[in-house]
């Protein structure tokens, strides 16, 4: 895509005003104080979508930790024991491939959504947006509207101001701590964590000690602080200065990508007018220059300057402008989701949407669907048993009574099912090959055992050298649960 006009590249909202001085040289700061943004609350179609996603993501996040499954936490990432539980699935470190798949799916999903409709993730689902939305809602309830908040910040410190500010930060901190607690609850069983956290102190070692472990305490506070800091204080700065996504979005956009667009052809020349005035007679466009689109913007930009890297695609300006258009009796959509081509070529809505099915989006969608299907099939066919065969390095090959050749192996048998099982161990690949050690092994639920296994081959059945063999480990009573592992039998 073409780069936006140079003016739009910079940050219209955050840039220091151009100071014109008569002096020949000018002192210039490489760093500047952030100008606080007071986004005006907005209602409308897209704001409703954002709130729906706030509810959906937060119900899953806050509630998911409390779900139980088979007498254990439904979703638990047990790092100490290196097992990840997700509903009925138990992931072991050997399943790291699924994490890779998850990351690939997430990345491709991001590519696809971005190519089709810009920064959907940023505007609706990113935790930074979601928590900022929640925190701004609290702020609005306690400190009041945008104008009231600005006035409050400029007023001298009074008891009322102190009370409002304290109340706001108290609520913020409460939400943040609960978020931190919930997050840690995905790594430490949340019910035990809750018991510990509410016990506060336990009598041990001759004195009261905090019941919550030092590391749990640290991480709860750490993630709580991160939530409070990012959603309460940092806000748009996270998107502007920390998040890399804004910086490479232009690589994923093209001329048919739906982005928040100000229809300059319709809006300009902008200007204030009375509702009754005839805009054609005044020579004005549809933009009444009310500034609502700037006031509602959480990143403090003016969308009328064109697409900017600060724009997180939240569509707050769309909702804000639509309300003004309604009041003025003008058609909606002066600011809308549209594409560069649609504005330039005056495409209709259906023509614009038809271009969603362009090769780029279809290729992304195809690859994404392929990987999701492959991962799903792989998960479906996954056997809750893993076996590693390690040849014994001490006894390469030994001759035992009757001239039989014996090799020793260690089998690491990992029962990833949540029930204990007995496994049968067989060897295949050479005539007369036989496992002479204990033929069946009991392994507890979600446990692993290292078992020494002796394998014998009758004399004369194999030439000196190495011979490929296979171990077959199968669950007794459940033939579907079986794993074959290759190894080598050595005769000397």
């Amino acid at each position, binding site marked *: 895509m073409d780069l936006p006009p140079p003016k739009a590249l910079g940050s219209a909202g955050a840039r220091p005003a151009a100071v014109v001085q008569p002096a*020949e*040289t000018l002192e210039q700061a490489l760093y500047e104080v952030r100008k606080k943004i007071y986004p005006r609350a907005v209602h409308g179609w897209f704001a409703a979508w954002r709130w729906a996603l706030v509810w959906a993501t937060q119900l899953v996040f806050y509630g998911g930790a409390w779900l139980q499954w088979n007498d254990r936490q439904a979703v638990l990432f047990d790092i100490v024991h290196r097992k990840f539980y997700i509903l009925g699935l138990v992931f072991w470190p050997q399943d790291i491939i699924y994490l890779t798949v998850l990351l690939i799916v997430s990345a491709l999903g991001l590519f696809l959504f971005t190519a089709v409709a810009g920064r959907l993730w940023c505007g609706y689902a990113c935790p930074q947006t979601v928590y900022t939305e929640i925190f701004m809602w609290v702020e609005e309830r306690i400190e009041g509207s945008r104008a009231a908040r600005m006035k409050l910040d400029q007023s001298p410190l009074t008891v009322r101001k102190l009370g409002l500010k304290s109340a706001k930060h108290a609520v913020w901190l409460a939400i943040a701590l609960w978020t931190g607690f919930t997050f840690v609850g995905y790594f430490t069983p949340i019910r035990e964590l809750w018991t510990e956290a509410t016990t506060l102190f336990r009598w041990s070692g001759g004195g009261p000690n905090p019941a919550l472990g030092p590391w749990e305490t640290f991480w709860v506070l750490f993630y709580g602080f991160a939530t409070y800091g990012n959603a309460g204080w940092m806000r748009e*700065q996270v998107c502007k200065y920390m998040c890399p996504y804004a910086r490479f979005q232009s690589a994923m956009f093209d001329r048919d990508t739906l982005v928040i667009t100000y229809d300059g052809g319709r809006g300009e020349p902008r200007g204030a007018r009375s509702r009754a005035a005839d805009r054609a007679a005044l020579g004005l466009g549809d933009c009444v220059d009310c500034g609502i689109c700037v006031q509602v913007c959480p990143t403090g930009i003016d969308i009328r300057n064109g697409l900017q890297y600060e724009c997180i695609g939240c569509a707050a300006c769309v909702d804000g402008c639509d309300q003004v258009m309604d009041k003025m009796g003008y058609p909606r959509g002066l600011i809308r989701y549209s594409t560069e081509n649609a504005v330039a070529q005056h495409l209709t809505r259906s023509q614009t949407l038809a271009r969603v099915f362009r090769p780029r989006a279809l290729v992304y969608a195809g690859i994404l669907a392929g990987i999701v299907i492959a991962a799903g099939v792989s998960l479906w066919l996954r056997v809750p048993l893993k076996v590693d065969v390690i040849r014994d390095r001490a006894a390469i090959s030994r001759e035992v009574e009757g001239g039989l050749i014996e090799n020793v192996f260690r089998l690491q048998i990992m029962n990833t099912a949540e029930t204990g099982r007995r496994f049968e161990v067989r060897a295949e690949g050479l005539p007369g090959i036989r496992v002479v050690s*204990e033929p069946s092994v009991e392994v507890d639920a979600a446990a692993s055992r290292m078992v020494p296994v002796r394998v014998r081959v009758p004399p004369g059945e194999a030439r000196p050298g190495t011979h490929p063999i296979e171990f077959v480990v199968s669950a007794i009573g459940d033939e579907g649960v079986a794993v074959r592992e290759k190894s080598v039998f050595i005769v000397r």
Partner: protein
Amino acid sequence: MSEFTSEFWSVYIALLTIVSILACAVLLWTQGKRKVAGTTTETTGHTWDGDLGEYNNPLPRWWSWLFYITIVFSLGYLALYPGLGSYAGALGWTEVKQLGEEDARANAQFGPLYDKFAAQDVAKLASNPEALAIGQRLFLNHCAQCHAADGGGSRGFPNLTDRDWLWGGTPEAIKASIIDGRAGVMPPFGPALGEQGVKDVAHYVLSLSGSPSDSIRTARGKPLFAQTCAVCHGADGRGNPALGAPNLTDRIWLHGSGEPAIIETITKGRNNQMPAHKEFLPASKIQLLAGYVYSLSEQGASPAAAK
């Protein structure tokens, strides 16, 4: 930093480090603002290729605080931890000390698991599934390198799953072998016996276990055996556990069966070493290992069988 031969280098590096860090702070401070030609802050004033300008998009000020924080952190770190020349740091932290602390913590946490078995009889441990499961893991960690994962040994390393013992198969003897190790030495007799003498003795030794042997050589070897070998292996060749001398009348051969292997043993002697484990295994773990090894020979059992 003990590798420094003179104190000079330590001071030199410490100074260099501190001056560099302070220089970073000075650089940050002085370069945070600058004078540019022009009358507007809209651009930085840089121009390339005639018309390419650079917009001035200043970073937020807290970003520069991050740089100052790293400087404060580095000074704090260097005050607390070793890093400035040979200065050891206020905390006196060392890797070795940390390892010692972690070991102590692990022992405090897991020690009781082992300790409850320390006072139990070895023979009793050999039939305790829990003790055998722990014993097996210890065996795989500490013993399997030589004696093989199944305890079956290999050439030169005794099989622990049969009832043939060099140093005795009682629980006490097994424990003693693990604690203090064993040195099994057979002196070379090649020079003393001569080539033919060695061969004669070898055939006599073969005959002891009923292996095929040359009857003439066996007859010639018998008096030689009585003279040179019987001291350790006994007049009947049944060995002596007190010396670790193997029983020659069974068909178990530590260094290989057959005439050539036996001739080599007699000619060159053997020097076998089982290392002592008391230095790095606590008594409770040795007790568990002894129980496991005892079970291997007594029942040919593994914990799987016991379970």
